[in-house]
């Protein structure tokens, strides 16, 4: 014990230096958005490779389950194919032109914080850029935020600052969907005018009024709704189809006509 205390006293200047340096970096991080993003990027680079290693091992043991999930997805896609045998015209909503799909694996995922993020194993080298939409086999998942050469971090749909344009599939009434926090399987859809009808069990899909997602990608279904005191808008509780606590394979959507869209709407 005495020796430990002696060692601390002998190196007290170095310890004080490191402590003050830590303060200075926290200060830097809080004061400058530029430094914040650069530091985040550095962290992502380091953590990405670490998580990838961990995920590779864990992945091996869940192969059977994943196979099942992929088979299930295949089955659904086949069902769709047989339902629309000659559906190759460009008006088909889910095959809107201008979106490129890329596959990626989630290597880090959180769902227990107010602002949840994911890390995926594709990055700038795989043509992933910021602000691309992410969808899973069951519906939308999030939006890409930062990228490094081999990894990208994304805002999960379970992120307090994410707002998604969504609509009711039955009557196309659109509103804004966000996560109020707490539960990973409850989202809120607001700004739907009361002149529309809503029923429990209705499907909620993307509205297509943002650059991130094409329209009619499934999000979830209505589990409860109420009319706000102003009597003008509904507040609709939505249960997402995607299970955010078990994400594995996702697709990144690249909007090939984004620049064109942004010229119209700067």
């Amino acid at each position, binding site marked *: 014990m005495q020796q430990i205390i002696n060692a601390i006293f002998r190196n007290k200047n170095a310890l004080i230096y490191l402590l003050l*340096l830590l303060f200075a*970096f926290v200060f*830097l991080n809080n004061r400058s958005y530029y430094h914040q993003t650069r530091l985040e990027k550095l962290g992502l680079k380091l953590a990405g490779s670490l998580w990838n290693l961990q995920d590779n091992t864990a992945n091996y043991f869940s192969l059977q389950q994943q196979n099942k999930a992929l088979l299930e997805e295949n089955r659904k896609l086949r069902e769709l194919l047989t339902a629309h045998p000659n559906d190759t015209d460009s008006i088909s909503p889910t095959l809107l032109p201008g979106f490129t799909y890329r596959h990626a694996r989630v290597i880090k995922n959180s769902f227990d914080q107010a602002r949840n993020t994911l890390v995926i194993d594709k990055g700038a080298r795989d043509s992933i850029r910021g602000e691309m939409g992410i969808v899973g086999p069951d519906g939308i998942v999030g939006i890409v935020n930062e990228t490094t050469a081999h990894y990208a971090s994304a805002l999960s749909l379970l992120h307090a600052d994410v707002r998604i344009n969504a609509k009711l599939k039955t009557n196309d009434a659109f509103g804004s969907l966000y996560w109020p926090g707490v539960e990973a399987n409850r989202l809120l859809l607001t700004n739907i005018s009361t002149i529309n009808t809503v029923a429990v069990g209705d499907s909620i899909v993307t509205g297509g009024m943002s650059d991130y997602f094409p329209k009619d990608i499934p999000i979830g279904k209505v589990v409860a709704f109420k009319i706000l005191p102003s009597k003008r808008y509904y507040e609709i509780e939505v249960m997402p189809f995607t299970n955010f606590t078990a994400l594995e394979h996702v697709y990144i959507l690249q909007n090939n006509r984004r620049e064109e869209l942004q010229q119209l709407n700067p």
Partner: protein
Amino acid sequence: MIQETLKITGQFILLIVLQVLIFSNINFLGYINPYPYLLFVVLYRLDSSQTVLLFLGFFLGLFLDLMLQTAGAHTIATLTVCFLRPAISNFSFGVNAENSHALEYGTKRSSRMIFLALLVFTHHLIYFSITIFNWNAIRYILSNTLYSSLFTLSILWLTLSLFNVRR
């Protein structure tokens, strides 16, 4: 002791004021500014407590960061230079590093120059690395460091020669 404390406080305030009001607004050739507030770290007695110097350096940088609207580069650079100062003075003065007046007499002019140059260059390198914070701009960091260091060094050298009474 009280006299020494007063002297340090005076230097601390005066150097911050001069840096904020004058030296950070020079913009020589558009972007080169000297940082002669480092004189504080230079003049702090070599035989005084380094722990105190660490805190003083931290607050010197912090005040400058707050007043100059920089993010935290002055704090990190000044703090690091304060931490490295014993190593730098040992390297440049050798056995004379114990001498509290090493900067005024009893040492070779070349050792004093090396001491100043190392201190200033280390500080500026860290300062510009933190400010720019981008590995791809390494050439810009280095050129900025070089020009600003030369500027600061000449100001420090002039100031020291002016106030150095030969004994």
